[in-house]
């Protein structure tokens, strides 16, 4: 893998800070979130970990617009931001890479990257919806290149790519459009070790571009070394957020499973 290109040159992201404040969410009688608070910094990889039912996925869905919180506030750059839909989140520059990737397998990587945001030619071409394929190809190749991703061809159907490559294409799509944060739900759940490594490289390159990357993962040993900070959730709250340099896998697991915070 090539190292990512210096972010100063190509980064389109401005540094945005996101804060989830006291988020609650009830589904009928079940309280999935009981006042979760989380700060997310630009340019960092923030891992969100916790046992099943701790509320990780629900908290991420609140950020990506797939779930509307019962109460609480989402603050972006100090201003309250209402995120009631995926479209709202995307307008705020927050894009999600879904666990099942949400790709069209028969379409090429470049078409998947641009689906719903196709670039059109100018003039009459725009009116009849003529695709600017050359420009789209150039930008898709650039985006993959910036993330250090190498795939056989951006013109081949993503069906033909390996799992890690497909995940990398999905991340490239999010990075291309995100200006604030990329949210990833279990990005390596279905992948082997080698493919996981590809995806982790891509995640680091994404953060290096100035975007906040929030990763939900069960892969504790790897995520502790990948992330800058680790938010540990339990019973619908964020128990504690640790700097990864000042903690270790054992401590994270103990906190996840019920130990008290000693720091």
């Amino acid at each position, binding site marked *: 893998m090539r190292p990512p290109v210096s972010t100063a040159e190509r980064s389109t992201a401005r540094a945005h800070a996101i804060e989830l404040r006291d988020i609650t969410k009830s589904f009928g009688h079940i309280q999935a979130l009981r006042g979760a608070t989380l700060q997310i910094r630009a340019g960092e990889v923030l891992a969100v970990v916790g046992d099943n039912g701790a509320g990780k996925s629900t908290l991420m869905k609140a950020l990506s617009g797939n779930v509307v919180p019962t109460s609480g506030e989402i603050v972006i750059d100090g201003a309250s931001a209402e995120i009631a839909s995926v*479209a709202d989140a995307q307008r705020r520059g927050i894009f999600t890479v879904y666990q099942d990737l*949400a790709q*069209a397998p*028969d*379409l090429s990587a470049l078409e998947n990257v641009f*689906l719903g945001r196709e670039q059109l030619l100018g003039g009459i071409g725009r009116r009849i919806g003529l695709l600017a394929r050359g420009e789209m190809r150039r930008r898709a190749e650039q985006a993959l290149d910036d993330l250090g991703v190498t795939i*056989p*061809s951006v013109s081949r159907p993503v069906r*033909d790519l390996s799992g890690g490559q497909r995940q990398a294409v999905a991340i490239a799509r999010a990075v291309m459009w995100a200006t604030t944060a990329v949210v990833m739900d279990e990005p390596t759940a279905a992948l082997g070790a*080698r493919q996981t490594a590809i995806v982790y490289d891509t995640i680091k390159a994404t953060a290096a571009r100035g975007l906040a990357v929030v990763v939900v993962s069960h892969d504790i040993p790897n995520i502790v070394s990948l992330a800058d900070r680790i938010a540990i959730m339990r019973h619908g709250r964020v128990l504690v957020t640790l700097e990864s340099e000042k903690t270790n896998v054992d401590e994270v697991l103990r906190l996840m499973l019920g130990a008290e915070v000693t720091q």
Partner: protein
Amino acid sequence: MNSVRELAALGDVDPRVAAAAQQTALGRTVRSTTLWVAVALLAIILLFGALSDGVFLRADNISDMAVNSVIAVILAVGATFILGAGLLDLSIGSSLLLCSIVSAKVTTALAGSAEEVAAGVYPNLALGIAGGVAAGIACGALLGAVNGLIVTRLKLNSFIVTLATMGIFNGIALIVTNGVNVPNVPQQLQTDFAGSKLAGIPLPVFLAAIVAAAMWFVLTKTRFGMRTLAIGSSEEAARRANVPVDRHIVSLFVLMGVLAGIAGIVDLARFGTTNLEGHQTDALAAFAATVIGGTSLFGGRASVGGAVLGALIPVVLATGLVILDVVSFYQLVVVGVILILAVWLDQLRRSRFN
């Protein structure tokens, strides 16, 4: 992009992926269904040419076959978009019929008074034909919109919806005509359009060629075409990418309806009358042609060129068999076998990577 070999050396590429990437353009062409359909069609044509001592290959026979294929080609090209989006439209034969009736009725109503038209006199012929063409196309758009709105608003499977509207449109066609074909359609439609040639090529063939070329362009070069295949490949992915999927599906059915309307006008012009009994199997033939031409039965992958070739095969077979004095019913058997082969090939290709 870096070479695949370099990547494969690093060991992080699935060998099947590396193999796929190393396919040359030639390799991919050899694997394309469209090419094989073209080869098969050419072989059939040459075989008939040889067996018939060249009669089959005479210009007038080629021209006749082209004209006989026009309606099938127009419908198959539309079916390519519908199937490419993972949808079906079984109502296109009934739509064609109903629109040809609407077109005929509007034409005869506008072309002159009832007495004049009954006597074969059309004082307002141009108005009548212009009105008839507009009405036929509008009818198709309307029927397509009905299909599309039922599919998207009621969230019903397009197979069932169009199975139902096939019966409904056919029923309406029989109701408005009392089961009798519309009489007194101006002969000029036959003489000046259907039977007329430009540079030796029949006008309807020009029409079909323009329709096919335009639809090929839309499928391969425009956002509309790309989103059509995206919906067929993964409707969920398209929705998450904020593609207005429901609106797109309605547009696809309207497009199919308009093409059925145009085909209805061609049908009217060719035979000088409506054809109440003649379109029961049009939809099945159109989707068969589309699948034979390489469009995936499951959507996501489509070929307009393949659909055109697929639509030509039954006409070529039927004509050749007639010339050879063989009962042309064998055509049905052969087309059925080809259809099964085409679907089987599609399935093999899908299972290779999954």
